[in-house]
């Protein structure tokens, strides 16, 4: 069952290149349904009888490629399948105006999906490297779609950052392989001992992944790339792509290095990651508050929200099992909720900008009664981003708060609460303008699928506020837990 998740997207990527325009939309829809079906079947399978191993072409480790599907990876697969489903429907009507981009968008879309599934299922470090690279190239390709100068400029910055990151990651992998002779994460987990080479390797891998996840000091490439790209592209990038490298970072720190991460060097490094996260939250929120373009605002909001994810490390490493468990669940729930909410936010903002024609925040005047559904979708997703109840974001923030309290790390507690307020500051900037009575631009009509797909994703983010028990119980059954629950 698992290889299907890789085969379908790759096959569909090729199909999209070959097929003529007329049959394209039908095949895409079929592919999407197949993809979601496969994801849900795998989730059910893992939920019923725990994690599954699958050796490609039954080559055993260390040479062969092993695919592991445990609770975490299955949750993330369903996340990417569902988000991809709605983004695809959105893109189909959004790209009608962009004839030229349409032809190249779909193959890249499927490659992206394939690489994502590859990363979620990968069991060893090198597979992750390959997945990362494919993901990076597909993402850069998508960013260049519009072909205008700023988009190309952003794409180049993104490409160089991605390349630098993956090389650092490869160097780290090389050192690890040199020292321990294997690249499979479970085996590495047992072999690792706390010596200088391991620290250097983990350091390099972390720097590489931080670059690719655009965490605070290395975030310079994200806003122009996500802000400048087409709406469906930036939705996919913000919701899924940056999460993949974070997921690998979490696996490295919490799964592979789980035995040795209470070592003083790694413990303080984890606190360092937390500080980077705090920097991301404060700097991202400040930049978002100042941003003139509404897409840049949402992009900087991504930078800020990724800061919350980084809090997983200080809260889960070197703390009691209870605190680590809570931190792990909180981070994962935040990842899911942010995935849905940010995709919905980018899509709704895309519709608004499409209708108005101008991208500045102040041009959104009078939107609330002309395009209410998109604004309502933006509102719902904003509720989850701000971490206000009843949303998935709130439950995630709640779990992180509980974990911070359980591990007596009050500074993260305060940061979480203040972070929520900062987010509210820049989100309500948009609301304030949208309620202004007289519109400054006349609005061109947009098709309703744009509104309703964004609304659906936002509704899922809000519904997770009530039903966050399902994904969390799924995470319970996953192979590894931060700090072993």
């Amino acid at each position, binding site marked *: 069952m698992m290889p299907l998740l890789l085969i379908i997207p790759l096959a569909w990527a090729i199909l999209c290149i070959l097929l003529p325009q007329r049959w394209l939309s039908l095949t895409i829809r079929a592919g999407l349904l197949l993809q979601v079906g496969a994801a849900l079947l795998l989730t059910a399978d893992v939920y019923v009888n725990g994690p599954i191993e699958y050796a490609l072409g039954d080559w055993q480790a260390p040479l062969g490629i092993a695919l592991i599907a445990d609770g975490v990876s299955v949750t993330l697969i369903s996340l990417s399948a569902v988000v991809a489903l709605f983004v695809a429907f959105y893109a189909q009507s959004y790209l009608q105006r962009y004839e030229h981009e349409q032809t190249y968008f779909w193959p890249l879309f499927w490659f992206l999906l394939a690489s994502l599934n590859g990363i979620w299922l990968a069991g060893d470090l090198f597979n992750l490297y390959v997945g990362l690279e494919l993901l990076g190239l597909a993402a850069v390709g998508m960013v260049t779609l519009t072909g205008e100068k700023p988009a190309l400029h952003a794409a180049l910055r993104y490409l160089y950052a991605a390349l630098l990151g993956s090389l650092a990651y490869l160097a780290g992998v090389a050192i690890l392989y040199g020292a321990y002779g294997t690249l499979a994460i479970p085996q590495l987990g047992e072999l690792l001992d706390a010596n200088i080479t391991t620290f250097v390797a983990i350091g390099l891998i972390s720097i590489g992944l931080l670059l690719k996840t655009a965490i605070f000091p290395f975030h310079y490439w994200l806003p122009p790339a996500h802000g400048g790209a087409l709406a469906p592209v930036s939705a996919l990038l913000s919701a899924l792509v940056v999460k993949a490298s974070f997921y690998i970072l979490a696996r490295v720190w919490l799964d592979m290095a789980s035995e040795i991460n209470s070592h003083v060097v790694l413990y303080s490094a984890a606190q360092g990651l937390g500080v980077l996260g705090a920097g991301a939250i404060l700097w991202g929120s400040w930049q978002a508050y100042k941003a003139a373009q509404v897409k840049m605002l949402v992009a900087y909001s991504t930078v800020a929200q990724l800061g919350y994810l980084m809090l997983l490390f200080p809260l889960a490493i070197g703390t009691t099992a209870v605190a680590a468990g809570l931190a792990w669940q909180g981070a994962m729930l935040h990842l899911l909720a942010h995935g849905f909410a940010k995709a919905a936010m980018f899509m709704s903002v895309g519709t608004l900008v499409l209708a108005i024609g101008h991208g500045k925040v102040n041009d959104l005047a009078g939107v609330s009664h002309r395009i209410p*559904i998109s604004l309502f979708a933006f509102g719902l997703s904003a509720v989850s981003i701000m971490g*206000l*109840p009843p949303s998935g974001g709130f439950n995630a923030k709640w779990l992180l708060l509980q974990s911070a309290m359980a591990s007596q790390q009050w500074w993260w507690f305060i940061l979480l609460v203040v972070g*929520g*307020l900062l987010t509210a500051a820049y989100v309500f900037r948009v609301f*304030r303008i949208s*309620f202004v009575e007289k519109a400054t631009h006349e609005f061109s009509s947009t098709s309703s699928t744009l509104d309703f797909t964004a609304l659906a994703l936002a509704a899922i983010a809000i519904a997770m506020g*009530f039903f966050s*028990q399902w994904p969390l119980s799924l995470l319970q059954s996953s192979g590894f837990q931060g700090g072993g629950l």
Partner: protein
Amino acid sequence: MMPEFTFWLPVVVVGTSLLAALIIFALPEAQQRTRSVLNIGAAVVKLAIVAYMVQLIMAGDIAETRFEIVPGIDFLLRADALSMLFAGLSSVLWLFTTLYAIGYLEGSPHRSRFFGFFSLCVASTMGIALAGNLFTFLIFFEMLTLSTYPLVVHRGTEASLKAGRTYLRYTLSGGAVLLTAVALFYGLFGAEAAEFTEAGGFQTLGEGSEVSLWLTILFFMFIAGLGVKAALVPLHGWLPVAMVAPAPVSALLHAVAVVKAGAFGIVRVVYNVYGIEFAWQLGVLLPLAILAAITILWGSLQALRQIELKKRLAYSTVSQVSYIVLGVCLFGPIGTIGGLVHLLHQGIMKVTLFFCAGNYAETLGIHRIDELDGTGKRMPLTSIAFTIGAFGMIGVPPTAGFISKWYLASGAFAAGMNWAVLVLIISSMLNAAYFLPILYRLWFKPQKQPWPDEQIAAARFETHGLLLWPVVATAVFSIAAGLFAAHAFSPLTWATLISVREYLP
């Protein structure tokens, strides 16, 4: 009673207005008729269910919805006596406010958006009323902030946007403080202590000094978080500024939804989380009573200075809501009854006053008090309703206000806090000082200049039907609540039932 059936009752109550909100949002602006039918239908259905649940509670049964939302914490909606008090108030007043809003917003733009958020706001009020533990309460408390913001900025003018900004600044920071308090509470005392129990969860707790220190700190954080919505003095800044919103919004915000949610929260925390006896031992009630007293006097003094009618009513709300908080702090069953019954009475009376203010503004374009001369003759029914409401606020019998002041004062005497009676009396005199001049202008002054902008001519009745009859109805209610106070179905009897259960350990 089949347990299955009562499981879904609370959810249905909250669900009706949620569903209504979603459908109304989807309705295009033009379908005015379907929207009104839907609105009123939802209100009536909700009223019926609440009435049925009240009858259920009388029989001692409990309707409860519970499922695990976050590991270890339940999403709990439970209908107990206290929640029915607030739920009953909001559902009754929501029906009148909907009728009034339909009449008030005749022909104005974006009504779909307005009524959507309007029912969303009431759904969250229902949620607050029925919340069974602190976590669920927090969820609906924040939902209330989000759903009321668009109502405050409904007009879209610069002033209302500025008001919205202030409103957000206050309520969101209050929400953050409340989130911290609830998170700390759950962290320190676990989920079962956070569940609302009849007589509060803490009598049993041993007197560890460190624990009681934490409890005191948490108590004042709760009060700070809830105090923003309950408009306690330092945190009341948003209330007068939010007067820019249209009349049905300020009526709903100030009489039913937001302000009462804050006060109701404080009642929940004192009675059902800490327990009145434990709170008294902890010694936290006295500072809260002093804060409430300061708010009462400060609100009345400020109201004296206002020249705009709605601003004066806003400051009067600031002081009146603190009666409830004062009632809560009077350690003793009578004081509790006084506080709880005032929760209802103030709601009914203040809705009447705001409806009248809305009528004056909508029909004759009057916004300032000195333009009110001679309106008694032009709009007799509205002015009579305003007079009843005003006398209610002063506490002149036989209005409902008198009953609550009577119980608050007796409660204060019973609790030995005689200074509280002094505060009540002074505040009544201040109320007289700022309401009687208005009545004087209404009835005894001839009309000087023509009305600022008379929109609705004086046909058979003074103004639009939908504007007039809700006002008359709520005025009759405030008189009936006072006159038939001792009656079986009166708010007073219901408050006594609650307070008896609070003090029955």
